[in-house]
């Protein structure tokens, strides 16, 4: 699977990159939301792991840009956030965002969620 990780925390992107590589997946990680958006426009990913609280260009901005460009429906986005779950309000839950998982999370659980999104029925 080809996975994109967008998180401003370098330790998180490093961890997830290593983990997905260990598990045999192709992972591209970035600490910049805008760069992540441009990667998203030019590549097709099986899953996008997105952080919400990022400086300058937030996860919400990332989602808004996808909606504006009509690219949200084709994505499988997993929001991975350290914010309390009740505080995460995403209006376009049904348009591309598949899961909201709180940080820190079990890596095996995260991978299982991605795999379940890409099950070919």
């Amino acid at each position, binding site marked *: 699977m080809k996975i994109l990780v967008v998180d401003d*925390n370098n*330790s*998180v992107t*490093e*961890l*997830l990159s*290593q*983990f997905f590589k*260990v*598990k045999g997946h192709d992972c591209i990680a970035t600490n910049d939301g805008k760069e992540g958006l441009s990667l998203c426009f030019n590549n097709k990913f099986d899953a996008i792991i997105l952080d919400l*609280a990022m400086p300058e260009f937030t996860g919400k901005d990332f989602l808004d840009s996808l909606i504006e460009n009509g690219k949200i429906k084709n994505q499988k986005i997993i929001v991975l956030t*350290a*914010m*309390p*779950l*009740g*505080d995460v309000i995403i209006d376009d839950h049904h348009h591309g965002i598949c899961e*909201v998982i*709180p*940080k*820190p*999370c*079990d*890596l*095996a*659980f995260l991978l299982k969620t991605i795999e379940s999104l890409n099950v070919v029925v």
Partner: protein
Amino acid sequence: MLSSILKSCTATLGLREKTKKKDRKRSDFGKKRRLRISIMHKISMSRVSKRLPWLDDMKIVPKISIMFSVFSLIISGVGYLSINQLTNVAEPMTADSEKLLTSTTHAIIIYVLIFTIITIGCLILSFKPMIKSLRKSQEIHSRSQREYHDLYENSPALYRTINTDGIIVNCNKSYAERLGYTNEEIIGTSIFKHTADNDIEAMRDSFETWKRTGAVKHREVWLKAKDGTIFPTLISANNLYDENGKLIGSNTIIEDISEIYEARKRIERQAILELQFTELKKMEKLKDEFTSMITHELKSPLFPILGYCEMLIKHVSSSNLTAEQQKMIKEIHKNSNKMHRLIRDLLTAQKLEMGRMKFDKIKFDVTEFMMEIYREYLPLMQEKQVEFVNSSEEKLTLISDKHRIGQVIDNLVLNSTDFTPAKQGRIEISARSKDEMIVFYVKDNGSGIPKDQQENLFHKFYQVDTSLGRKHGGNGLGLAICKGVTEGLGGRIWMEGEEGKGTTFYFSIPKNRNAIESS
């Protein structure tokens, strides 16, 4: 006969001559006296008429009596002059003239008597309405006095009368009652004795102002009762003068404004409270933002720590690590997990307390969910050599907040682990359908909880053992969070068991069938 009459007349006249001189003297004195009396009478009448206006209304009867009086005086005068004339002219007197004199004298006497009687009668008749009118005035006067007395004495307002030295010379019932003294105790004392210690200056200023300007209006002064209690009043005073216009004191009306003062204080307190409430709301918002921020900042570094530990334990080959190193990594993982749970519990407790807990309800497979929990805790139970059982029913689904239910089971399982003895211990988790609810339970054969401490279990920060040397850790938030979450999801939580016989914690969550059907 005639000579004897003449003699007697002469003697009478001689005597009269003598008496005339005397009378002249007397009449001079009398004139002066009469003049003085008449002036006094005029003055007094003018005074009286000023005071008694009914005199002006006196009409016909007194006038008639005065006319008769004047007429009788004229008749008496004429008679006197005629007799005088007769006695002077008819000398020596004839029998006829003597007869004439006698009859004339008789006639005059009769006339004088008649007119005198008529005059007296008229005067009596004229006095009657005067007396009546006088009585009426007296009645009006005494009624006014009574009314004034009633107004002063029975007024609900506090009245006191003071002299120019500030000594109380009179006070009403309300004043005496409010201050708790008797009238006798009050009269003769200084107004400053009844003034609150802190307001002596204010009273002095009020008193001086009255003396200087002649009036004081609505001055706020605190008075002191006999029992030492103080109360706020509004003081207004007017002047009292004697008949010469000299200032002799003041009548003071004192309004007890305790209730108004209390109401004002309540309003002020309310305003302060509102201000504090606004400030608190601002601070609460700041605190909330700060908590969110700090939680986020605490959780973020935990993810790589926990993630790398997990990778080293589960996902990469451990052949490069010694057994000691693997043990160290497991310790890091275990303690990082503890820290994670503590942060999560603190945040959840705060949200529950503020009523800001939000639930994200989704449809999920409960059987699978219970299996995930079983798998998650199995290594820990194996490590502790505790028998771990999952006896959940098959094919259970629920629409609820999966993460929060997971948090409740986490807390209950960890609690049981803490109180269950190693080796012989047994912990069972289960989810079963019962009517419109799914009932979850976590059952252990641990030390149990004494009956008297069971009802406090779900209170925040409550610990069964609070001693410094207690065996079991925990923040005291776990069960309070479980209660808050289950109730927030429309269910309830309870426990069964007793000391030495293990404990079972149950919680029920509504299935939300309608939501399932519509979803």
